[in-house]
């Protein structure tokens, strides 16, 4: 049991990263619009995040320092600051959407407008960040997030022709009613969602919070190889469910309530209840990830004491950054801005900033000064280099595609 609980960091990171409010809607929307023709992007994204999260976790285990702690030292203050600004902006934007996401998940259960619930859910996130020990936090929300396995149950209950589903996923093409530009745009959105920078900030900082050392390298691998593929499977099941239930009815997805409709329709009340618990846990987990990551990046760049493993009084500036970011997110949410659009923009913009996050990790993982005998092997470096090229191409293409497609319309 203890062994099984050791991988809750990976599960929380992956569920918060793969099935947060933006991903839930983006995956369902992609399934309804493109059927399984973009499923391959999820697989490519899962492999990419596994490669780089393993590196980030290994760096944290061997050096005892998290990603951003080393970014400034390795890249210098100028490039490090650019990285910090881009990462913080995207993380804060995502946090804004997640705070609304938690409130929307609650609103679906209690039928109260989500804007009335946002102050309460933000306060709840802050209390958890402030009071709950890191390990307890990751176990509660990581395990509750597993309720999202109901997406797989939904797909099973629909009883699809598995061969045709697989064939569609392995022979992708641009659907007739879409253009290559919208196809590429949604592909980038899915890829950006899979490799969101805050996932590695949170995962590597979490490893330091849990005081991983060289003896925990296997725990790191177990977290990465179980957690992230699980997130990928949930994404694919959600995509397939939307394709099979919503697409034939001509429903395009733009709200969280529509994401739950296939499960309610096919599985019934119990399935819907599980799903609402899972969505609450996933969006709450993502809010914790992004809120903490905002504090981690700033504190690690500036060399302040940080984290939940030290007493709040000793990491006062870290907690202040988290609190200010939460309040900022709350205020933006209360303007009534569409949280789904905010998160869609945040995952697409994060795609533009991906090389800034992953290039330093690759550099550090190859530096014997930090890593000793735990530097990357040749095969891993080759794979990581291929991904770095993909990340760069994606980063260059993101903004033009956003403009050409009017953000995927």
């Amino acid at each position, binding site marked *: 049991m203890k062994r099984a609980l050791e991988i809750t960091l990976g599960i929380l990171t992956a569920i918060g990263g793969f099935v947060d409010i933006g991903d839930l809607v983006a995956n369902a929307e992609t399934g309804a619009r493109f059927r399984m023709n973009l499923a391959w992007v999820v697989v490519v994204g899962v492999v990419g995040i596994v490669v780089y999260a393993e590196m980030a976790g290994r760096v944290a285990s061997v050096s005892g320092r998290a990603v951003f702690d080393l970014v400034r030292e390795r890249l210098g203050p100028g490039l490090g600051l650019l990285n910090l600004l881009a990462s913080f902006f995207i993380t804060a934007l995502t946090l804004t959407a997640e705070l609304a996401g938690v409130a929307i998940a609650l*609103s*679906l*259960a*209690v*039928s109260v407008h989500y804007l009335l619930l946002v102050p309460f859910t933000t306060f709840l996130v802050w209390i958890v960040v402030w009071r709950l020990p890191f390990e307890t936090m990751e176990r509660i929300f990581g395990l509750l997030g597993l309720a999202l396995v109901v997406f797989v149950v939904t797909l099973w209950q629909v009883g699809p022709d598995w061969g045709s589903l697989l064939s569609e996923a392995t022979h992708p093409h641009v659907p007739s009613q879409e253009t290559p530009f919208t196809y590429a745009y949604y592909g980038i959105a899915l890829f950006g969602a899979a490799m969101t920078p805050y996932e590695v900030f949170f995962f590597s900082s979490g490893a330091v919070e849990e005081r991983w050392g060289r003896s925990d390298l296997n725990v790191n691998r177990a977290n990465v190889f179980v957690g992230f593929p699980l997130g990928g499977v949930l994404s694919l099941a959600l995509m397939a469910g939307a394709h099979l*239930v*919503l697409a034939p*009815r*001509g*429903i*395009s997805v*733009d*709200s969280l*309530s*529509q994401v*739950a*409709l296939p499960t*309610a*329709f096919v*599985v*019934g*009340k119990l399935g*819907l*209840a599980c799903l*609402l618990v899972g969505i609450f846990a996933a969006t709450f987990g993502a809010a914790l990830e992004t809120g903490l990551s905002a504090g981690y990046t700033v504190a690690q760049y500036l060399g302040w004491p940080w984290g939940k493993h030290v007493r709040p009084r000793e990491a006062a500036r870290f907690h202040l950054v988290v609190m200010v970011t939460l309040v900022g997110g709350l205020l933006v949410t209360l303007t009534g*801005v*569409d949280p789904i*659009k*905010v998160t869609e*923009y945040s995952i697409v913009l994060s795609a533009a900033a991906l090389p800034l996050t992953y290039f330093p990790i690759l550099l550090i993982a190859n530096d014997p000064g930090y890593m000793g005998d735990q530097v990357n092997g040749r095969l891993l470096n080759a794979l990581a280099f291929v991904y770095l090229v993909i990340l760069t191409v994606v980063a260059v293409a993101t*903004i033009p595609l*956003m*403009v050409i497609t*009017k*953000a995927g*319309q």
Partner: protein
Amino acid sequence: MLCAAGAGGCVSHPVGPARTLTTYEGKAVSTAESASSAVQTVRLAAQTGSDGHAFGPYLSITISEQEDALAGVEGTFGSIQPPGEEADDLRDELDALLSRALDHVSAVRIAVRRGDLDGLARVAEPLGGDAASLSAFAEDHRS
């Protein structure tokens, strides 16, 4: 430019100008498609409720959101200046479809809030015709 694009996109129903009939027709088609999606969502939600597969609060929020979305696309389309008389006819035709669909969606929302979940499929029956009309409109005017 990016910020402007982003800010524009975060608004629920961004409006662009239509200076030619073709552009106006294109906007009418995407309006009909969005409306059809909202109507079909409400139909599916109503069927789910009638089958006893969902809770009242969930159905209430789901249907209200689609009602708002439908009212939003109707308002957005109504605010676009038709470029000529031919466009006026198109506008009248789509307006009638949207208005009828909105009335029927409102009826489903009222039934949900009154707790009449068993009878939802019956109340939602007219939406089948609305969805078919909106799809036919989109198909007829697609260039």
